[in-house]
């Protein structure tokens, strides 16, 4: 007879697993994260997790959260979708994000725009420079993980628009052709600051143009901490006339909504 052949044995077996530490897992509560990087106060952490290659995660974040994504080993690819948490029909619009800001590439001071011309989040720090807003996620793996992550917020495949990819880059050539530029190497971080309460969906799978046949992808670190949203004198707010109007639209919405 095995030790799990009785309810008592099965209960003991299950309970004995508590406290196991693996590479990919969340810290609950986030403030117990063991090795916060310099400048991060563990008491302010609201989300601390390592997402395995091929894994996904999701969270609702308060407005004024700093979301730090780190490519731990150099082959993470953070496919990201954002929604206004109070009304998820408002969501990231990559076409508006690139068109309105006259820029095909993601980087510092780029506002991640919703389809309602508001700022869901901004890129405040970018150590990588290798990102992509054009190719979306890999058709099979990424879509499957986004579908699961979305479902956990009551959203369906109809709620999945084109996504962003952090840590694996693509360059557009003059003939419109795409060159995969890959990763900037291990340890690089990107920090996003949320400007609205947002649902964040993250799938850590290979970029669709990654030529490696075995879907190479390594762990992604996710650390979110309480901070403050942008103010009219923040560099993101004044990065461009278009960004300024997007922040003004956001402030207008928050005022009417009673959130600011």
């Amino acid at each position: 007879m095995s030790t799990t052949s009785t309810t008592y044995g099965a209960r003991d077996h299950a309970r004995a697993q508590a406290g196991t530490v693996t590479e990919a897992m969340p810290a609950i509560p986030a403030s117990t994260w063991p090795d916060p990087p310099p400048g991060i106060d563990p008491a302010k952490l609201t989300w601390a997790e390592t997402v395995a290659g091929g894994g996904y995660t999701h969270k609702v974040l308060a407005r004024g959260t700093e979301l730090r994504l780190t490519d731990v080993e150099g082959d993470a690819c953070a496919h990201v979708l954002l929604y206004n948490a109070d009304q998820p029909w408002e969501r990231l619009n990559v076409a508006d994000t690139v068109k309105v800001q006259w820029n095909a590439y993601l980087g510092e001071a780029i506002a991640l725009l919703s389809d309602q011309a508001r700022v869901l989040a901004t890129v405040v720090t970018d150590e990588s420079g290798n990102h992509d807003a054009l190719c979306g996620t890999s058709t099979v793996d990424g879509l499957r993980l986004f579908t699961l992550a979305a479902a956990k917020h009551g959203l369906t495949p109809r709620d999945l628009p084109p996504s962003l990819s952090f840590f694996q880059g693509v360059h557009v050539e003059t003939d419109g052709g795409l060159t995969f530029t890959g990763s900037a190497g291990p340890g690089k971080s990107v920090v996003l600051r949320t400007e609205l309460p947002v649902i964040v969906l993250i799938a850590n799978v290979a970029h669709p143009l990654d030529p490696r046949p075995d879907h190479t992808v390594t762990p992604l670190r996710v650390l979110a901490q309480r901070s403050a949203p942008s103010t009219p004198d923040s560099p993101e707010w004044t990065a461009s006339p278009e960004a300024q109007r997007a922040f003004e639209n956001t402030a207008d919405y928050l005022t009417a909504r009673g959130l600011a």
Partner: protein
Amino acid sequence: MTTIISDTEVAARAPYSTVLREGETLAIIDLGGNQAVDFLCYDAADTAKRYSAAATIAAQRNIFLTTGSVLRTGEGAPLLTVVEDTCGRHDTIGGACSKESNSLRYGQHTRYQHACVENFLTEGAKWGLGKRDLVSNVNWYMNVPVEQDGTLGIVDGISAPGLEVKLRAETDVLVLVSNCPQINNPCNGFDPTPVRMIVTGGGA
């Protein structure tokens, strides 16, 4: 033998929609030249399967559409193939104008102008589609180059009166069009004009 199933002139600023049966062909003719034709398509049997700019771009490794390009769903399934293109290339990344994005691009004074998202919502509602079904779209005839430093923008068109794109349906496809009403940028020469839609069957 080729049969004309429908032949429709879509007025400047107006929407249009139709269902193409597998094997049928839709010709989009730019009557006045440099008219942006905002375009979405769906698997008619299951509209949750819809055009994905990202999957289409990734599969062909190029942001421009032209002869031979295949418009794909997020799952990678082919919806439409460009079988003829006398213009040269078409946009996949600029998306649609909306009242909201106009407020960012030009200023709040443009918020009350007609926009493509209004057309998509109005026409899509006839087919049970709503805002969740609107994603990054194709802009036939719209010219959106990307500079080497990443600067992109809608610039003067490369189309001319009478140029034509022909799309063959690879399955039954619902097509949703906004004949772009934008008057603040060169996507349609600041002057929206009509386009002609000809659906043919029988091996066009």
